């Protein structure tokens, strides 16, 4: 199941941040921690059950919102959702060139994993990292400057693939180190 962001509320508004992809990380952190200090259940241990429950619900929401904004891809999905766009609409086609590149990466990962080839895995991880950075830059342009929601949605889907593969490459590297 896709990790669609919760559009039940506006995560940016919760932290009093502008609804943009470019993020003031320091401001997000500061607002998150300030609210945690007030709302966390540890601050209401001896309060009435209703207040304890409200504290739990409020901080659970705060944690969800923080996680959504702190992770760039989830942030982009949420931003599109606020604009009424579903990043995972079923009719979205993947361009042939993108698909070919994804298949190449996939094969490279399989070849470098069995048996583990740490230098090749490290090179692949670096390549995927660079691809991720480039997609994030594309996302920032599409969302904050060109307001091109379709391009943003395409970048989000590619980013999902690249991040998953990057994670697999890192995990394979780790397994190689621990063996």
């Amino acid at each position: 199941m896709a990790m669609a962001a919760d559009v039940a509320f506006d995560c940016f508004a919760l932290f009093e941040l502008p609804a943009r992809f470019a993020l003031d990380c320091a401001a997000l952190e500061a607002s998150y921690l300030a609210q945690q200090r007030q709302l966390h259940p540890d601050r209401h241990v001896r309060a009435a059950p209703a207040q304890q429950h409200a504290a739990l619900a409020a901080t659970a929401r705060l944690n969800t919102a923080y996680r959504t904004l702190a992770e760039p891809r989830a942030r982009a999905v949420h931003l599109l959702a606020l604009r009424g766009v579903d990043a995972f609409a079923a009719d979205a086609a993947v361009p042939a060139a993108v698909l070919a590149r994804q298949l190449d990466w996939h094969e490279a990962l399989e070849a470098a994993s069995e048996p583990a080839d740490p230098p090749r895995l490290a090179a692949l991880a670096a390549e995927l990292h660079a691809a991720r950075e480039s997609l994030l830059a594309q996302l920032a342009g599409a969302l904050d400057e060109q307001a091109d929601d379709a391009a943003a949605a395409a970048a989000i889907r590619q980013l999902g693939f690249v991040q998953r593969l990057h994670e697999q490459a890192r995990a394979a590297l780790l397994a190689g180190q621990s063996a």
Partner: protein
Amino acid sequence: MNLLQIAEPGSREPPTARRRAVGIDLGTTHSLVATVAEDGQVRLLADTAGEVLLPSAVHIGAEGGIAVGRAAAAAAAGAPATSFLSIKRYMGRGAADVPAAAVPYVLAAGEGPVRFVTPRGPLSPVEISAEILKVLRQRAQAALGGPLDGAVITVPAYFDDAQRQATRDAARLAGIEVLRLLNEPTAAAVAYGLDRGGEGLFAIYDLGGGTFDLSVLRLRRGVFEVLATAGDTALGGDDFDRCLADWLHAQAAEAGAPVPPGEAVRLRALARRAKEALSETEAVTVDCPTATGPLPVTITRESFGALTGELLARTLRLTRQALHEAGLTPAEVDGAVLVGGASRMPQVRAGVASLFDRPPLTDLDPDRVVALGAARQADLLIGNRGPHDYLLLDVLPLSLGIETMGGLVERIIPRNSTLPAMRAQHFTTFADGQRAMRLHVVQGERDLVADCRSLAHFELRGIPPMVAGAARIEVSFQVDADGLVSVSACEQTTGTRAEVQVKPAYGLTEAQITTMLADSLAHAEEDAAARALAEQRLAAEQVLQASRAALTADGDLLAGGEHEALTQAMARLQALLATDDAPAIAAAQQALERLTEPLAARRMDHHIGTALAGRHVRDLEG
């Protein structure tokens, strides 16, 4: 955000109304209780003998008497089936999880949580743990001069929902109001961080008696934020003991003098003491109890390290995994902190030092640091105005999921999510007029239900009858700051709240807890007196046994008059054991101990002369 009335902790109470709050480290091998004193310093609370470590041992006597602590631990060699030494290992577990052949206990038949057959009837780990907690509560009440207002109880970070719920239930049975279940490594971080005003990234390596946890935390501006946690709730110092005991067993068998099965518990105790001694010295000699008498076997620190290498490697793999999940490399960590008695082993220190490429922090006693942190947290939560104000943000150790078609798991809340966490899922009905739904909630990282821990079956009832597919049921999964899971459900088109019935897979039902609670309240006072007597009897029996053994082995070291006085004192204590007079038994026991002292000293001299290499680990003797 006007949901809550904002109140800083403590602001509602006048400063004079200091509340009695303690931190309890309910450990696998021993437990402690600590509190923050009025001067803001943390103090460990001791028993009347001045001991702060309470062995987490519970012995059930033949007449049903309960003994807790040192006496119960010492009874294990003679009565292994009714002496529970590592009960924490069985918290929140079912009978199928306990390998009957590997434990000295008799398992009671039946579904649900594991139960052990005792002279008091079948007892669950929750009830047995409650006995340990009762002793700590009484100790705290005596020290603080009144009933407790609340306690923070620590649990391994890697404990799942069932294990946490079991711990909470045990506290309830012991009459303790739990302010919070706190993860052990987080508690240690609090003790370290507050004492040093630290900022930065820390890895807490916590190897206890029966559990291993690794938590990665970021400390900044009074917030302790757990980034990732990994662990194994069935890996601890006990396993190193077992490894060594197995090796000793093999050595004895090879020498043609096997250790009889009846001596297995004694051999484990000897292995444990040898392990502890190896942290101080390069080699120790163990007298293995064989059928033909003690067989000395020497083990070096190096060979012990080799023997337990795989156990250490497992902890280091989990450490790397937690760092990976926090997106960190070992070099980015500002400090690695060692917690838990088993982290004293030199090979563990060396392994951690090598992984992080710097010596680990060990300046707080690894046995005590968890209780110290728990006491700070209890003081903060109860609202006493302490010297520190800070916030803990901990995480869910294991992903939460529900069973879907074909025995697969759908992940609802991923592990390492900051707590509290909540997630709503939508379901619909598949039959006309369907009134109820059943959800199977599991915890774990695997894709198949069979490979995860079953937590509970939740039955939603009272769904309004509608045509199939018309109902829109929002099920909300929630994990609170204790790491405990709850589920609520609502049919959204009509706004009807579904009634949720919980059937825990390995827990006690609410009704069972209530019955146990009523029973224990009715007998609280007589229980305390009976326990004191049972413990006194056990201690006396052990002194008697040790005296008899000493007399048989080394009687020739005594002068004639000494021999006679000793025999008389033994007879007197033996006679008093038949009475219920605890103070008289204690007095006679002390008298006997005074008489055996010179013999013990002479035996020591005698043995040092015959010891082969390094330190000699002596046979158990009371």
